């Protein structure tokens, strides 16, 4: 694993999402003694994480503050909760999002609720980083997007960046935040490059980003689907359709102000995520927009998500599972055409 990631991180060049996350962790560790990192294999003796996201950190900050754990997700989250209550700022890694299933009690019954149940006497300022996403042939138990569960849980915030700058800035804000934040990374796009963030940069939680301005339709997405929406926008522009792309960045609480402003302008909306469509996060956005803009929309609000199946292994099926730019563009085009009737 590359020990040098930390050093190369903050500069004016383009860096990858992986480097941005590594840099955000390094800077948070450097800026605040109360920050520490824990998770399976995160230490440099263990290679600095299975894909190297935490590479170099334990060498620089010590094994106490960057600590590899046993394979015990309940204990990882429990240790984070307890330390957070006692004034520390843990950043826990749950290697893949499907593994949160063994720690849901800790996250939902405890991290999310302790502030409320204690009447504000305790708080749980912690971050849970986790990665997911189909496309790496990992099959049914390693690629689920489960953000909908957490967005449906009071007390949690849910964040999912799609660029290096946002990854850095959102992670810094998540670590600053006084409440527990679920921070979702996409496995497939770790290598995506973008402008390097300025050291110390913050992206506020709860604020979406208008990635591309447009006037015919608003496409709302996040995580890897924000990229695919951008690709769809290119396809659409060739068809003469101007799509506004909103990268939600924070899924809960989501930025109604920005989204509303956009839909007020375009009159059409399409929500896209990789999570399966039924009862998915897109439903909240679609239901809210349909109500808010009742009578003012040019077309129904539509949603695109993965089909209602586990993630398949075979490449032919996995490719069909993930919403594609073409599928997004197609759906958008239909809405625009429908709205023109």
């Amino acid at each position, binding site marked *: 694993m590359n020990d040098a990631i930390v050093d190369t991180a903050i500069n004016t060049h383009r860096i990858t999402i992986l480097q941005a996350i590594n840099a955000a962790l390094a800077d948070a560790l450097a800026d605040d003694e109360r920050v*520490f990192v824990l998770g399976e294999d995160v230490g440099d003796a263990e290679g600095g994480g299975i894909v190297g996201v935490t590479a170099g950190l334990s060498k620089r900050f010590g094994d106490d503050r960057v600590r590899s754990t*046993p394979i015990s997700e309940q204990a990882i989250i429990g240790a984070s909760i307890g*330390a957070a*209550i006692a004034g520390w700022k843990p950043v826990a890694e749950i290697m893949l999002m499907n593994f949160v299933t063994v720690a849901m009690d800790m996250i939902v019954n*405890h991290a999310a609720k302790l502030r409320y149940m*204690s*009447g504000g*006497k*305790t708080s749980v300022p912690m971050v849970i980083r986790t990665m997911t996403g189909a496309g790496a042939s990992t099959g049914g138990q390693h690629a689920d997007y489960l953000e909908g569960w957490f967005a449906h849980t009071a007390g949690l915030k849910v964040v999912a960046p799609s660029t290096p700058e946002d990854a850095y800035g959102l992670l810094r804000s998540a670590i600053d935040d006084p409440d527990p934040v679920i921070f979702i990374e996409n496995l497939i796009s770790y290598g995506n490059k973008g402008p390097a963030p300025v050291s110390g940069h913050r992206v506020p939680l*709860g604020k979406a980003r208008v990635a591309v301005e447009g006037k015919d339709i608003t496409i709302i997405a996040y995580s890897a689907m924000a990229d695919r929406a951008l690709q769809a926008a290119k396809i659409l522009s060739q068809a003469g359709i101007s799509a506004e792309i909103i990268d939600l960045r924070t899924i809960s609480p989501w930025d109604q102000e920005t989204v509303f402003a956009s839909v007020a302008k375009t009159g059409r909306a399409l929500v896209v995520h990789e999570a399966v469509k039924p009862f998915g996060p897109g439903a909240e956005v679609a239901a809210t927009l349909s109500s808010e803009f009742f009578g003012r929309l040019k077309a129904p609000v539509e949603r695109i998500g993965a089909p209602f199946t586990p993630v398949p292994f075979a490449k032919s099926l996995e490719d069909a599972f993930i919403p594609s730019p073409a599928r997004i563009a197609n759906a958008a085009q239909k809405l625009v055409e429908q709205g023109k009737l």
Partner: protein
Amino acid sequence: MNDNYAVDGETRVEIYRRMALLKANDERSRKVIKTGRLMMPYYSYRGQECIPAALAVNLTDRDYLCTIYRGIHDMLAKGLPLKELWAEIAGRIDGSCKGKGGPMHLTSPDKGIMVTTGIVGSSMPIANGLALAAQLSGDGRVAVATFGDGASNIGAFHEALNMASVWKLPAIFLCQNNQYGEHTTYEKATSALRIADRAIAYNMPGVRVDGNDPLAVHAVTLEAIERARNGGGPTLIEAMTFRFHGHIYGDDDAYMDPARKKAAMEADPVPIYRASLIAGGFATEESLSRIETEIEAALDEAVEYALASPMPGEEELTTDVYAEGAAA
């Protein structure tokens, strides 16, 4: 008292004071519920008083406690103010958690009472985090997790004890083995001959102690606490005890072996310890009665305070979900 424990008289009496407080508080709780002045799910700890009383005199307010739904004894022993307690279990704004937590989620950080959980087993992983905070700070605190015998069969127990051991955390895992988990006997649910044996799985000291013997509990917990404070890592303690009034207030005892229950109640640790203090010359009937009278008065005051406290207003419903002013 004929024993070999090097525990001074003051401490012996202080342990009793706490036991008497716990016993009286339980009796008062059941009475207040019975007379309909209060409605709440109540998990009586009557019979288990000795354990937290003897533990708590070895702790300071700065030491951490993670306890469970059946944990009011643990908290009172550690110093939870009676008024805070009663206002909370009455669901009033002056409660420790503004009435929002209730009896299963009492929290009082000033006294080191950090978490009360209603989920079986979940006190342990979180206690690890408190212990980790102490270890990282080097502030010498310890974290105690209390839990039941039934909880020793759930995954969180295992993960927590393993992690505590490999990280040598200053944690004490205190199992109050009252021989039942809800309505199921120890024997039917728990494969280990003794829960203390499970310490071997974590290469951790494990000890079973008579939970009716305050001085034995005092000694065992003191040793564990000192080991933890001195960097020696965690300990698993199994204190044998019994809950006199079933799982939850109102459950009938049909599932319990009457002989087992009768024997346990006859071994009620509170009067036995009381008598031993007097017999050993550590206290007099009068001095102990005075303590008991003071407790009753404090309880009178706390109950009235609680019932006079207002219910939380509707604005409380949506506060404390997130930090005030934070994006939400």
